[in-house]
């Protein structure tokens, strides 16, 4: 079992896809000569050549649309949107086209496209470069939305995305790229729609995804050490399909629940998760399902302000300790 970074996990999954399937090719801004703005595709252009590692103009709509067209015609494109903030320029292609073609064509046409992108804040990049918008895509029937929190899940989910016939928004987090974790040498996949209990506990359930899973795990350690509270951390791993059952099962055991997400509290996907949990586990709850989310502000540049805007361990601990 190798210990590798989240970046290496994704990079490795892309490399093996390029090696094993001639239909796979990559398109995006700065992915070739530059190596990807987060270095995920560093060296790929030397290894696979400019036909399969295609640098594109800074024109997000045509990046995604070209991926859609190529996928419709039987290729296996992987396109990169440098950050999820730039996905807004490609929103029509994602929302109106990629997610709808299969349905609108009565099942005739599928779009086996992976759209890789980077979500979240924490790098002092201010309001336009720090958003967590994956929940918007998770609202759309016809899309898959993967939100890996560990190197293991990143590799396993990418493999699943590359076998799926549907468009997948594969969301990475810039602050996870250097995170290390165990990744088996032997082949495995992580299925879509299967949440995982990342840490068992009996006192409270914390549901989260992407980077917030790591924050929740650290908060759970502190809850155990400092407060004697055993928190169970449920990592969703994909937002669509969404596995609420694993969270519900956990809530039925702990009777308390906190949902943690990085995006704004208002209209955040966390509200959806809370709604589903209370529908399925109302009788098991000792109190309201609490939400920990980003502050309802455009992300500030100032380090101190930024740190206040993004949920942290203390926020989670405070939410857990709210009396039922």
């Amino acid at each position, binding site marked *: 079992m190798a210990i590798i970074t989240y970046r290496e996990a994704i990079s490795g999954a892309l490399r093996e896809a390029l090696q094993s399937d001639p239909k796979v090719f990559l398109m995006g801004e700065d992915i070739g000569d530059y190596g990807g703005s987060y270095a995920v595709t560093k060296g790929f252009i030397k290894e696979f050549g400019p036909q399969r590692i295609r640098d594109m103009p800074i024109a997000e709509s045509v990046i995604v*649309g*070209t991926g859609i*067209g190529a996928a419709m015609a039987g290729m296996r494109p992987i396109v990169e949107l440098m950050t999820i903030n730039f996905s807004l320029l490609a929103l029509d292609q994602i929302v*109106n*086209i990629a997610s709808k073609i*299969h349905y*609108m064509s*009565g099942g005739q046409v599928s779009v086996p496209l992976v759209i890789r992108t980077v979500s979240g804040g924490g790098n002092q990049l201010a309001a336009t470069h720090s958003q967590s918008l994956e929940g918007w895509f998770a609202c759309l029937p016809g899309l898959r939305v993967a939100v890996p929190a560990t190197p293991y899940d990143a590799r396993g989910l990418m493999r699943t995305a590359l076998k799926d016939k549907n468009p997948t928004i594969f969301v990475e987090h810039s602050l996870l790229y250097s995170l290390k974790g165990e990744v088996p040498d032997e082949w495995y996949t992580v299925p879509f729609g299967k949440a995982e209990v990342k840490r068992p506990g009996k006192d409270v359930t914390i549901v989260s995804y992407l980077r917030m899973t790591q924050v929740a795990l650290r908060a759970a350690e502190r809850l155990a050490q400092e407060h004697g509270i055993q928190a169970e951390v449920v990592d969703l791993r994909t937002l669509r399909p969404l596995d609420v059952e694993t969270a519900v099962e956990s809530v039925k055991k702990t009777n308390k629940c906190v949902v943690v997400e990085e995006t704004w509290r208002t209209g955040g996907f966390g509200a959806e998760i809370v709604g589903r949990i209370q529908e399925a586990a109302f009788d098991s709850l000792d109190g309201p399902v609490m939400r920990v989310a980003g502050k309802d502000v455009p992300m500030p540049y100032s380090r101190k302000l930024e740190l206040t805007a993004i949920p942290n361990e203390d926020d989670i601990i405070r939410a857990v300790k709210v009396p039922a």
Partner: protein
Amino acid sequence: MSKAQMQDFYRRMLLIRRFEEACSEWYMRGKIGGFLHLYIGEEACAVGSVSCLGPADYIVSHYREHGHALARGLDPSRLMAELFGRATGTSKGKGGSMHLFDASKGFLGGYAIVGAMLPIACGLGVASREKGEKQVALAFFGDGAVNEGEFHESINLASLWKLPVVFFCENNGFGMGTAIQKTFSGPAIYKLANSYGIPGEQVDGMDVLAVNKATHEAVECARSGGGPSFIEAITYRFRGHSMADPVEYRKKEEETRWRQRDPILHFPKKLKDEGLATADDLQQIEQDVDRVMEEAVRFANESPEPAPEELYTDILAE
């Protein structure tokens, strides 16, 4: 061009005309819902261009795409059933007028968002190149689309990567109800393409043969690795933008002038004058088309509505 081909052009244009007249009628009778954008007047664009494609080539189109679909040989009965929202429709009643598909014929969709098909055409071109095949993608769009960012993004990429895409702009002079003079600052649309290094020309969109010649050259250029071309067909929409449009924004004289160039009147006359069809040939074509249309409407009317459980099928590919 053989006599048979010339007669086939007329047959296809007439089928489009009659199909859309039937659409208008059945829309008024409440069997067709939603938006209905008729192509009446523009038939020469569809027939002249689509006839240049081989069976493996691709088409993507816009929301006024009935004509392109029929020119490509999609089954008129299943198309009409789609407009009626029936289970037998080309998209099982889930797409409707603006979203016609037939993957088996490379007809990869009508797109109801202006300009949205242009990046997709680039992708089809990339796939054709990646697979080492010689398929060409023909992309239809209207004059309204050239002001969209996606237009510029797409022709830039197609030119840059020498993609086998034929950009076919149907310039009917109006984006919905707004005249192009109010929305487009350039001297001519095709010159935009030229400025991106794409060969392009303006053709008479009421002349099926002129359209055919220009598209033929463009398709051959794309197929032989010469990259994209751009055709701006100057045409006219005899009806409103949609059935809801009373067309109060244009002058009667203008419409009358264009109607004199109606390909459905003009072209058969030419065939007769040049000895390419007899009066009997033309009558036979009209009868054939009427029969096809009668069957299409009967089929649509008698087809079942989709079963309720169809709501949840085809969301995701298995």
